[in-house]
């Protein structure tokens, strides 16, 4: 797989796995509005994954109508290239909100850069997605404030969530394999620049929400490495499709 295909697979898998986690709140969110909100957010993320998988299909000489389904429903967990942060279980509401916020903030930064990609199909998808992501970022940033500055319990849960998630965040802006050539060609932004912009965006905001940045190093993780949680997620997600592999949906 060449560098651009690898990059697209990473983007797509991140959206898909996060979307799946978001969907796990359906019927279980703390209030009805958030049940509705997260069902929407989940569907948006899956739609975004579909766009990235579609472009990957075209670059791989595959049918964009069927290749995404094959990738999603018939790949083994070890062949997924998502970051570990998105495969972690939903935890409590504070964890879910913080994880989504940190990811949304990074997406804003990355998509704004990708919208200027020299590779037009990629720029077009990024431009489409960033408009929809606006609503996600708006939603989750308000919740981070609400919980961080809320009751002593909500604040404690947010701080615990931040302590747990922070080491995983570094992987969001870790360069993907073969990224250098893509950066040189102006196809994707430089990951270290993304990291600086993302930190400048989230760190002051978290502090305003009275959250303390953990003094913990970011973990250097490879996208092929996964926690045991991913296998459980994939088995559940694929169970219906695999039960009747030749079904026409």
């Amino acid at each position, binding site marked *: 797989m060449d560098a651009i295909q690898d990059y697209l697979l990473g983007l797509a898998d991140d959206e898909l796995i996060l979307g799946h986690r978001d969907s796990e709140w359906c019927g279980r969110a703390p209030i009805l*509005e958030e049940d*509705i*909100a997260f*069902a*929407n*957010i989940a*569907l*948006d*993320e*899956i*739609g*975004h994954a*579909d*766009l990235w998988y579609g472009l990957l299909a075209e670059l791989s000489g595959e049918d964009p109508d069927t290749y995404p389904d094959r990738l999603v429903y018939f790949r083994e967990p070890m062949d997924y290239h998502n970051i570990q942060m998105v495969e972690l279980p939903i935890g409590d509401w504070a964890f879910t909100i913080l994880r989504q916020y940190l990811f949304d903030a990074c997406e804003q930064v990355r998509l704004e850069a990708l919208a200027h990609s020299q590779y*037009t*199909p990629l720029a*077009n*998808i990024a*431009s*489409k*997605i960033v*408009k*929809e992501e*606006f*609503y996600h970022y*708006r*939603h989750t940033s308000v919740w981070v404030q609400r919980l961080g500055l809320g009751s002593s319990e909500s604040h404690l849960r947010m701080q615990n969530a931040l302590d747990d998630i922070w080491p995983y965040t570094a992987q969001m802006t870790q360069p993907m394999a073969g990224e250098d050539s893509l950066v040189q060609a102006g196809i994707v932004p430089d990951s270290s620049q993304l990291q600086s912009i993302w930190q400048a965006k989230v760190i002051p905001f978290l502090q305003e929400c009275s959250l303390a940045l953990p003094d913990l190093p970011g973990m250097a993780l490879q996208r092929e490495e996964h926690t045991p949680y991913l296998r459980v997620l994939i088995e559940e997600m694929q169970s219906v499709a695999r039960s009747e592999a030749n079904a026409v949906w």
Partner: protein
Amino acid sequence: MADLNIQEIWQLLDDIKDPEIPVVSIVEMGMVRDVRVDGQKVTVSLSPTFAGCPALRVIQEEVTRSLLEAGVGDADVRITISPSWSSEAITPQARNKMKKIGLAPPPHHQGSIALALMEPVSCPYCNSTNTSLKNDFGSSLCRAIYFCYNCQQPFEQFKPL
């Protein structure tokens, strides 16, 4: 069968309703980006409103079926995201139809959604602006939920995009 001309194709497409907002057509929604006729071959390009919209495939199938039933020999209905759809493309007629079913049309935003969201939203039932956002998300990807304190009814708004 005589080849359909381009106006007839557009008319045919204007009869196809948005499955989630059945009073408006896909043409009025600005979803039909391009129509080309080349003898018996008709190519239609559709743009999704939201990327994850589950109605998109249904619309694509319905357009294909409609073209074939009208005698088109080769119907090619493709999805394109470039140029990306904007709620600015929704026609004034469609906006009025939305109001009639209690769906507030999206505010004009001219590229700045954040600013457009600061504008007061009128209740589609009583026109009062004594309304409040209850949820940025609603019963479909394109909708937000509001409440009108004047007539005491909830309503949805088509989100500016």
